[in-house]
């Protein structure tokens, strides 16, 4: 059964054109042209056809925290948000630090509506002490290692892991990526929001920006020393952006992501004392928000990530210190990136699709130009449709969105994953 997306404006890394897209039963794009008709025809007129989005940073909570999210529900939310691939963080229970858990995540992923790309922890149990079996994990196809949720504190161990990773690239077929959550724990300990004017007024202990910046600085130095590819997760401060900009100018192999909330929300939101605004790294200041947007615009930051972090409702009905950090992101990222980043649509699509696809090592099948023979991982977005955010209406098992009640512009209409229409007219098919 063939599928045709009709009348959409295609935007990919090759440019723009208005053409129909025919997708064959083999899950590949069969034809791109005019006047195409298939067994099933989806209207894309007035819409944009893009390679599907790739999230470099999703917490899918399975195995172990299925109360908050499962791979199936997380992927469904991803599909509704236009994603065709999600990079799954390893802070599961048990930790994704061995081949068995990687295979479990991948196996669950195969039954979901996105390609699930497992990451593995750099250290066993993410405890920052013992190196995970990186060679075995690379042989199992893992290309990204991260202790996300915490930064790897010990500079000596970080150096060793960087060095070790450079010897694994040939087995993987591309450089191994180490993704760091930059936070010097000794400096951030006991803090629950950004340390600054707001934390001082609100009486909530803060985490200084320097807790992030010191580790960004350290890791840039270690990249210079070792040549490892380091990916900076969720940059949140102006100085972090500036340091990464300098590292790139010096030709170092570093990449970076920013989340939607770090270029939209500020620490002022914590004045509600609602832990829905509690996130790591914390929401920063207006100055930082502007710097993140500049970093996205000038290419310092390679990708927009979600840091989608579902938490069961009762865990957020707690005092600010006791509630877990994190917010939902998959279903709102495209609209927020389009409406609030200051970037135009082609730039937004690049930051959501083909640039993160390259970092994730899936550029052969995601973020690929829309041409015959390419895998049909696509989304169709309406840049003008408005909708109102409702946590309860989301596919996620959790509802901790900080944008509840906001009306956003730009909506995902259809998502095609390996040729299958998994979202049609904004509704998930499975």
């Amino acid at each position, binding site marked *: 059964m063939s599928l045709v997306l009709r009348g959409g404006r295609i935007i990919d890394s090759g440019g723009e054109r208005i053409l129909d897209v025919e997708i064959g039963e083999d899950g590949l794009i069969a034809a791109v042209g005019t006047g195409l008709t298939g067994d099933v025809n989806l209207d894309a007129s007035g819409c944009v056809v893009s390679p599907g989005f790739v999230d470099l940073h999703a917490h899918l909570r399975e195995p172990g925290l299925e109360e908050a999210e499962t791979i199936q529900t997380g992927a469904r939310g991803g599909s509704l948000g236009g994603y065709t691939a999600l990079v799954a963080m390893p802070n599961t229970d048990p930790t994704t630090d061995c081949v068995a858990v990687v295979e479990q995540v991948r196996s669950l992923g195969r039954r979901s509506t996105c390609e699930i790309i497992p990451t593995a922890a750099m250290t066993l149990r993410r405890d920052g002490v013992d190196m995970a079996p990186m060679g075995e994990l690379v042989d199992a196809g893992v290309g990204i290692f991260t202790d996300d949720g915490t930064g790897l504190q010990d500079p000596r161990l970080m150096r060793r892991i960087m060095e070790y990773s450079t010897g694994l690239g040939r087995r993987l077929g591309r450089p191994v990526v180490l993704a760091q959550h930059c936070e010097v724990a000794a400096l951030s300990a006991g803090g629950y929001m950004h340390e600054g004017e707001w934390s001082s007024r609100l009486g*909530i202990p803060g985490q200084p920006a320097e807790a992030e910046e010191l580790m960004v600085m350290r890791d840039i130095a270690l990249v210079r020393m070792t040549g490892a590819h380091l990916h900076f997760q969720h940059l949140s401060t102006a100085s972090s952006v500036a340091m990464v900009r300098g590292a790139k100018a010096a030709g170092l192999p570093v990449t970076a992501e920013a989340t939607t909330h770090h270029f939209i929300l500020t620490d002022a939101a914590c004045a*509600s004392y609602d832990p829905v605004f509690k996130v790591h790294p914390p929401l920063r200041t207006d100055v930082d928000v502007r710097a993140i947007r500049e970093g996205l615009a000038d290419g310092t930051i390679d990708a927009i990530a979600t840091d989608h972090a579902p938490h069961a409702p009762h865990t957020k009905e707690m005092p600010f210190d*006791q509630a877990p950090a994190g917010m939902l992101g998959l279903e709102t990222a495209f609209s927020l990136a389009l409406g609030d980043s200051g970037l135009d649509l082609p730039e937004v699509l690049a930051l959501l699709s083909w640039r993160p696809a390259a970092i994730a090592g899936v550029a052969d099948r995601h973020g690929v130009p829309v041409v015959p023979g390419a895998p049909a991982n696509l989304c169709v977005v309406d840049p003008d449709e408005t909708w109102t955010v409702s946590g309860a209406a989301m596919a996620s098992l959790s509802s901790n969105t900080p944008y509840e009640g906001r009306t956003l512009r730009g909506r995902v209409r259809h998502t095609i994953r390996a040729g299958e229409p998994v979202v049609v007219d904004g509704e998930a098919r499975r």
Partner: protein
Amino acid sequence: MSAVIDRRADNDRGRHLLGIGGMDRSDLEEILDLTDTFAEIGRRPIPKVPALRGRTVATVFFEGSTRTRMSFEVAARRLSADTVAFNAGTSSLSKGESIRDTVEVIAAYGADLLVVRHSMAGTAHRVAGWTDLSVVNAGDGCHEHPTQALLDCYTLRERRGSLDGMRIAIIGDVRHSRVARSNVLAFTALGAEVVLVAPATLLPPAIEGWPVTVVHELDPILGDLDAVYLLRIQGERITEGLIPSLREYASDFCLTAGRVARMRSDALVLHPGPTNRGVEISAEAATDQRSVILDQVVNGVSVRMAVLFLLLGSGRQLGAVDAGDSVEGDR
């Protein structure tokens, strides 16, 4: 951003006193004026009136406290309200119940007003958003302790007639003090000048915009002050690396007999209690004729009677509930 410390809740369903932030001079003066009435009741042979008969005040303390809880209970009973007490230590919280569930259960017992204390900033505000009952913040982490500020203002006003033009030093661990945050707002709203005196590590990380001046040495300003407000120093500030030792702190900041003697004869000494004798205040200074520490305790009951009466007896909203509001009228 405005200089005031905000105090807010999720909604305006109940009538609350959550903080001094958002209250203006007339709001504060209304409570202080009403306190005169209740102070008079406290001086009667039988200090009890039926104003809140049949109403129930629940003290919901997620953090240990003896004095504040007793003060609220005495205030409630003088108004003929019933009191019930919730203690976090012996409750189902230790069994993993969410704080929202806890609050809803207490409400179901028929309480009319919750007096809430918690070790984390904002918890009273969150509780106010979850219940239709009135909520009084009896201390939320390092944020606010509004009835303490009201009783302090009442005590100063009782001695001086007005806070206008007074120069008041708040000395000690401002960083971790809800009393300091509430008093900065209350003292300045009532026309006083506030000087914060502390080592740099015991000040909030960013206080640009606060209506205060900051100094790190006490001795040079001691003779120019109308009042000193001493904050409690806790031993854990040393293990946190904020000060080298209590001895060094005391050497620089303790109100000793020698220092109190250098203060003006009509200056006042306040402390929210309990005092650490020899750390922030010496025994001689605490009992000096300038000390009004016991007056503060007595006035605490009167102020809390006024607050409970305003919230339960008159249906008044005390101060603003939402961000940006200054004063709310009747609701």
